[in-house]
């Protein structure tokens, strides 16, 4: 860049010399002044050219990413209705799951997020004075890191729209977007992106490589991540303490990693919560929740031993008593309770 600038400056000097040959001689100062003005003009031109060139170069290497401007647009970007045509059973399982209503949850999520928004409004440094001030950045570093990771593909207008939907308890809007097929089988399916790159835009990730009979997602890609606990750990982890505001909903993966595995556990999240039960419903919807005897039996053993009552002969004033021993064994791959 500097070299090109100097060459043009020298060339300009030479042409000035020709142009000035038949003209009355001007003072050295005036020539220098004119030359400096010319150089300044040229340098300004270069700056403009350089600034124009940089974005053009960037556009050439990274395609423009379209961002959703409304919740409906975001829902359309993550439309999974075509998945149902071939994967009806899995789709129905997913519809029963809490993933399919990730902004609402059991209902408690709505209250929790409303409380969080109120908190942030009250926080001096949050940048949030009212719900509509919520931005993608606010959401993606807190609740929606897990409840709606695709918020990254939306504008701040969507962030505000969802925040206002929460405050109005507008569940119809909140139900439009969720953790669906594309979130797990595309967006979140590649963990080691420095090695493996970002998820391919036209691929669904799963057990095999190959083609996929869909107009948009034409390819299948094998991803070991999909069957590993770390897949679930992307969200069911915690505490999240590296954020501008702390968020601690779940500590499951930490418990799995630091307690279950060292204690000899060898199952993955998917084995207990998908493979051995009802697949993509993940045993987590309200009707199949903590009141499911089969799930509770798998997770906890409770033994109650009521010892025989006894009384003291030598100390007759001591009241008779009975010893009750309760043993509770956690067979799950994580602490109980947790979220």
């Amino acid at each position, binding site marked *: 860049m500097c070299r090109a600038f100097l060459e043009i400056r020298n060339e300009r000097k030479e042409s000035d010399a020709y142009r000035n040959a038949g003209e009355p001689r001007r003072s050295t100062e005036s020539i220098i002044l004119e030359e400096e003005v010319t150089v300044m003009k040229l340098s300004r031109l270069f700056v403009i050219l350089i600034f124009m060139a940089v974005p053009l170069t960037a556009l050439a290497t990274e395609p423009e990413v379209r961002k959703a401007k409304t919740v409906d647009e975001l829902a359309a970007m993550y439309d999974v209705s075509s998945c149902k045509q071939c994967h009806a059973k899995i789709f129905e399982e997913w519809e029963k799951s809490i993933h399919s209503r990730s902004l609402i949850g059991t209902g*408690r999520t709505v209250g*929790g997020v409303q*409380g*969080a928004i109120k*908190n*942030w409004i009250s926080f001096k440094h949050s940048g949030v004075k009212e719900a509509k001030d919520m931005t993608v950045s606010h959401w993606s570093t*807190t609740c929606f890191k897990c409840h709606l990771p695709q918020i990254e593909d939306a504008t701040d207008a969507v962030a505000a729209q969802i925040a206002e939907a929460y405050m109005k308890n507008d569940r119809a809007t909140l139900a439009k977007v969720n953790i669906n097929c594309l979130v797990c089988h595309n967006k979140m399916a590649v963990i080691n992106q420095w090695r493996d790159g970002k998820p391919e835009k036209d691929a669904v990730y799963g057990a095999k490589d190959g083609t996929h009979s869909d107009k948009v997602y034409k390819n299948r890609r094998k991803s070991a991540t999909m069957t590993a606990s770390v897949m679930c750990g992307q969200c069911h982890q915690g*505490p999240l*303490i590296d954020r501008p*505001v*702390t*968020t*601690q*909903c779940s*500590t499951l993966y930490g*418990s*799995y990693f630091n*307690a*279950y595995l060292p*204690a*000899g*556990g060898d199952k993955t999240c998917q084995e207990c919560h998908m493979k051995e039960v009802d697949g993509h419903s993940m045993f987590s919807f309200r009707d199949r*929740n*903590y*009141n499911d005897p089969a799930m*509770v039996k798998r997770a*906890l053993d*409770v033994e*109650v031993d*009521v*010892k*025989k*009552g*006894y*009384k003291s002969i030598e100390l007759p004033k001591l*009241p*008779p*008593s*009975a*010893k*009750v*021993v*309760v*043993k*509770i*064994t*956690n*067979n*799950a*791959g*994580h*602490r*109980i*309770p*947790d979220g």
Partner: protein
Amino acid sequence: MTAKTKDGKEVFKSEKIYMLHAGDSRNEGDQMVYGPANKLSFLEENTFQPLQTKMETYDVKFPENTKSLDVNVELRFQYGPEVGTIGKDSWVFYKTTREVSIK
């Protein structure tokens, strides 16, 4: 865990909450909080750990002239500090009643 006489009078009660007791993120003393956006420090961890057995023992005293007691043990999962509504925000994981008597 409770123990009751045959006529329903409660003579023993012990209740314990198992959870990851979290403190306020603003570290204001010994305040325990529930909200995910507030939790940070930890005050107590007494959850059921994976592949571990937790044992609780209770010494139930018989009231005078009482020969028999019903011992009730209930393990309940609940969202909040209150029991709430069973099946909605509170679930019974285990429940048993055993009789214990003295001669």
